[in-house]
């Protein structure tokens, strides 16, 4: 698990509507390239890898809701456009099972598709000259890191955690007050300024969204654990495929 299945009612309207709009545009572009016989040939392939994704997601790895999702592997084998279609289909089915929200299908699809597309690019383009094991591990780890960053950024931005974590406004208030009181009232008011500074610092500490950051920190830990498991699994499966069906790893290049 490298991402959050964002549930319904967590993201503001603007965020999830934008997610749907961008996903719809990308889906349109992906489907435009698939016409006629090519579309009919690729359809069972999408169904097959989508089913495999669903299956791996349905096997929990311990008490936390951690599971493999094989997104990077799907990206490496299917390429960016087919993996986008697959991920959208999987997200729709997951949402109907209460595993991620129906309103957040667009956002969830975008995050996972970015992971798959980066995985494909790193594996087939950027690290093409490296040994297979390094190539796979680097592609998987960096792609998963991207999706974790996107997930965390989304949680932070949509809940306003980033602004709450930076109590800059109080510093500005303090700077505005301090020179005036020092000039007008001398040493006595210097103590007053100190008290004001302490009070403002207290307010800043109070306004710092501690619980929000605790939640975010816990989430980061869970996601990093997921990253490790997913990267190792991807490495193992790619190693297996390179021995048994090496042609599959070149599928997206043949396209």
């Amino acid at each position: 698990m490298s991402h959050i299945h964002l549930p319904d009612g967590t993201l503001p309207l603007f965020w999830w509507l934008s997610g749907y709009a961008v996903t719809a545009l990308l889906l349109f572009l992906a489907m435009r390239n698939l016409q006629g016989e090519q579309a009919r040939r690729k359809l069972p392939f999408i169904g097959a890898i989508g089913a495999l994704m669903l299956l791996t997601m349905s096997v929990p790895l311990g008490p936390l809701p951690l599971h493999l999702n094989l997104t990077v592997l799907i990206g490496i084998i299917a390429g960016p456009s087919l993996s986008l279609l697959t991920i959208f289909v999987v997200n729709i089915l997951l949402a109907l099972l209460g595993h991620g929200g129906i309103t957040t299908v667009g956002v969830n699809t975008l995050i996972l598709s970015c992971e798959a597309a980066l995985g494909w690019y790193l594996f087939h383009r950027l690290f093409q000259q490296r040994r297979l094991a390094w190539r796979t591990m680097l592609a998987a780890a960096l792609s998963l890191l991207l999706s974790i960053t996107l997930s965390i950024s989304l949680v932070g931005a949509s809940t306003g955690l980033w602004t709450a974590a930076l109590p800059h406004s109080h510093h500005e208030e303090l700077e505005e007050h301090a020179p005036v009181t020092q000039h007008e009232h001398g040493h006595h008011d210097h103590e007053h300024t100190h008290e004001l500074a302490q009070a403002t610092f207290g307010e800043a500490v109070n306004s710092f969204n501690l619980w929000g950051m605790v939640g975010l920190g816990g989430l980061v830990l869970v996601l990093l654990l997921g990253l490790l498991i997913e990267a190792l699994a991807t490495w193992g499966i790619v190693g297996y495929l390179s021995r048994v069906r090496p042609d599959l790893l070149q599928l997206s290049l043949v396209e």
Partner: protein
Amino acid sequence: MKLAYIDLLATSGQGRLHSISTTIKISAGVVLLVGIIISQSLLSIGIFGLFLLLLLFWASLPFARLLSMATYPTFFSLPFALAQLQTSPALAVVVPLRAASSALVLLILISTTPYPLLLAVISRVLPAFLVDAIFLTYRMFFLLVGTLDRLLLSMRLRGALSWRNCWFSIRATVSVLGLMFVQTISMGERLHQAYTLRGYKGQIVCAERPKKLILRECLGLAVLSGLTMGVSLLG
């Protein structure tokens, strides 16, 4: 995630909701989802939650299992809830309840509606290619479950999946996943050949048998819409 179990409930269930038209059920689901998502107060979300629990009883659905599945998204809503805790403790409770209630709406919908009927309605909105992809993914999931069961059994017979042979178990699990991948791709290729032989032209027909819209069901939907809007505007 219990896809096979949900499918069994949808296809062989005899509850009151099973007999209602799919269009009406989807419309009611959308109305409830909108109501839940726009709810801001604990009272509103509490009323929705209570209504959904009563609906589970009324529809003769397995209460505990569906409820446990609906609580799954609350884990992912925790960061959002904790972020609200300092500014609005009430909203911090509303966020996970909203996630669980929305999940419950969708679970009730798919536990009482077989997938082909659901896809028949969805196909009016989504392109045929995507609807076919959903249909095939769903179908292949059940084929793969059988394959995975057989592979897990053979792994156990060879001493894998135990803490004593930890390293062997990990290696065997990865190999099984790889093998599943290879078998899945081959299955997809065979499926393409089978569909071509059967004259597949780019759209799997999964049309719902046309049903007359029953006045009682339409009235029920109208009442539900009114009540939902009223409840979500509470507080």
